[in-house]
């Protein structure tokens, strides 16, 4: 078990959680691309959010300065992560909370399950949280006989539809209103059969459905958007009020947080509370943000637990180029601008972290070879880099991870890949002028072989499957020059 060798950065373990898909991206993407309804839903939703987000970002004159500060703060956090975590542990504990450390998904699930068991409750209500999705907490709770109830509207739609989330912010982005109405009619006990597909009516149905749960459930599990090391303050940013319910009503609150969600000081919140809503939902501010520091006597949960989760993050931190993926504040702006995500949707990525950030985060959390197709799930157009509120250079990390995969392939296979052979041949040809000129003349043959729709013959056909072959000119520059 070299993976748990003491003190060495470790990737997330296999067999638990949702960081690895069952199939590679190209295989899964091909199925998504054939789903016309899915593509319509995604196209409509991402276009809507892009317009909204651009409008509110345009309102602030200092957007680039805020991005720069956000990037710098997160860089500083990563450089000082161990000491800041120790500081957070001290401040949370001093404020009446209990801090737990989870090296991986298995341990985090066990800690939460034990904490819920200790309360005697057989049901927990949950605020939407990527960390608990990542570790497969719901499955672990169910296995222990504890019912997890998702309270975020989109998570509820996913849970009732026995579906998988497909977007960081809006897990049910792949569902339109008519499909949501059908799921509610089928799965929501006591729902009005006259339910329409009007979004306000659907939201009201969720309100009625969950109010009793909110009032009667004694334990809640949340994630965290930010944790302030200096003060021990946790922040959850949301829209519906389900977060406020879960953070206020129960006796016991358990917050599961990736260790990278730290920010050093109270004042640093001013940067991220401006960046996140505008980049995420395209709002000047999301409807509700809750901040709490430990336990407040007489107000809210009197028993507060914070679970600090590694689960592969230390391995991401160990990579000098890749570690900036830990700066992510889960806004999902990169998904909404990505031409690949917009067409394939989130399920094709296999991991709970889809889109451009998922393509760099998931392979690093699991080790590149466990998600080897994801770094290639991009056209490297760079829209994600421009959209990222903390300026994560996603295209550079993608290229870096592609190189890692190529190196891993080379070290595991004695025979070079066909791509490597082709590239080596091309390099040799370009180094030798007579060969190069001959190759240019020969390439004219592909004017016939490579007509649109035709593509190259095997074994080169894989290359032209998803690309148009450039048409070689009837005369090369060299030939034209020789005639002058």
């Amino acid at each position, binding site marked *: 078990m070299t993976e748990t060798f003491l*003190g060495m950065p470790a990737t997330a373990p296999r067999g638990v959680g949702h960081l690895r898909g069952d199939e590679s991206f190209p295989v899964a993407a091909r199925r998504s691309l054939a789903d016309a309804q899915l593509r319509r839903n995604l196209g409509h939703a991402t276009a809507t959010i892009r317009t909204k987000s651009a409008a509110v970002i345009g309102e602030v004159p200092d957007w680039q300065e805020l991005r720069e500060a956000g990037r710098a703060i997160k860089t500083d956090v990563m450089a000082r992560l161990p000491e800041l975590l120790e500081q957070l542990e001290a401040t949370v504990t001093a404020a009446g909370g209990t801090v737990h450390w989870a090296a991986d998904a298995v341990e985090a699930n066990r800690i939460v399950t034990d904490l819920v068991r200790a309360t005697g409750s057989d049901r927990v209500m949950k605020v939407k949280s990527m960390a608990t999705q990542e570790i497969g907490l719901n499955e672990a709770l169910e296995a222990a006989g504890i019912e997890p109830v998702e309270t975020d509207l989109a998570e509820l*739609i996913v849970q009732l539809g026995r579906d998988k989330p497909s977007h960081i912010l809006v897990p049910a982005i792949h569902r339109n209103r008519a499909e949501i109405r059908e799921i509610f009619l089928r799965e929501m006990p006591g729902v009005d059969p006259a339910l329409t597909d009007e979004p306000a009516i659907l939201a009201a149905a969720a309100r009625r459905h969950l109010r009793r749960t909110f009032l009667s459930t004694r334990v809640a599990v949340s994630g965290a958007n930010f944790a302030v090391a200096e003060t021990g303050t946790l922040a959850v940013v949301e829209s519906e009020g389900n977060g406020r319910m879960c953070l206020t009503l129960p006796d016991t609150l358990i917050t599961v947080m990736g260790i990278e969600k730290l920010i050093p000081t109270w004042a640093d919140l001013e940067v991220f509370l401006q960046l996140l809503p505008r980049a995420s939902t395209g709002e000047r501010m999301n409807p509700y943000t809750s901040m709490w520091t430990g336990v407040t006597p007489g107000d809210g949960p009197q028993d507060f637990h914070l679970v600090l989760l590694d689960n592969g993050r230390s391995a991401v931190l*160990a990579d000098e180029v890749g570690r900036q993926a830990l700066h992510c504040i889960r806004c999902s702006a990169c998904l909404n601008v990505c031409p690949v995500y917009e067409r394939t949707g989130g399920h094709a990525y296999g991991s709970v972290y889809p889109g451009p950030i998922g393509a760099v985060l998931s392979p690093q959390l699991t080790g590149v070879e466990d998600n080897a197709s994801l770094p290639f799930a991009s056209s490297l157009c760079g829209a994600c880099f421009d959209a990222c509120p903390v300026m994560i250079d996603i295209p550079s990390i993608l290229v870096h991870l592609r190189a890692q995969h190529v190196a891993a392939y080379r070290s595991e296979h004695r025979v070079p890949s066909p791509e490597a052979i082709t590239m080596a041949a091309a390099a040799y040809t370009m180094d030798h002028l007579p060969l190069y000129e001959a190759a240019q003349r020969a390439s004219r043959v592909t004017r016939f072989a490579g007509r649109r729709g035709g593509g190259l013959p095997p074994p080169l056909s894989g290359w032209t499957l998803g690309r148009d072959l450039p048409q070689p000119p009837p005369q090369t520059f060299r030939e034209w020059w020789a005639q002058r």
Partner: protein
Amino acid sequence: MTSRELILGRLRAALGASPTTPGEVTRDYRPAGGAVDLDVLVHRLTDYRATVHRCSDGEVARVVDAILGGRRVVVPPGLPRRWLPDTVEVLTDDDLPTDRVDAADGVVTAAAVAVAETGTVILDAGPAQGRRVISLLPDVHVCVLRTDQVVAGVPDALARLGPDRPLTWISGPSATSDIELNRVEGVHGPRNLHVVIVPA
């Protein structure tokens, strides 16, 4: 070895090979201290479907009457009584059971700070704002705000607030963007938010 030691050891090892220097953070964005424009606040609140009333302190009771007259209203213990008309049934929160708060038609609170640029009112659970639960369960929230509580931007708000109390930042009524990414008002929190702005 505990998991705490394991994780901290892994992180130190991760940084050890290629440490990054803790960098100075350049803060060239707009700092606290911008000019407050009440019209901006009103516009932003209204834009996110809050209802704004501007009146004198003496007229607050009349406004509350128009919104919640004849109905049951929960209030925090420190709320100025002059804001409440005779027409409402007042339920003072002295640790009321959750079911009784849930059964109330509305809630009247004060506020701690408001952010003009984002259309946000912030409650810090002070005596005139009460426990977090009372401004959450009733379907109508009337929030009385003094003009001297309004600040220009988010940095100003954080400078006025502290971590010692639980904070609730409210920007419009409860909403969701979960159905086709369009904002719809009204899910679990109060579906009606009234902000009453009175001179300081």
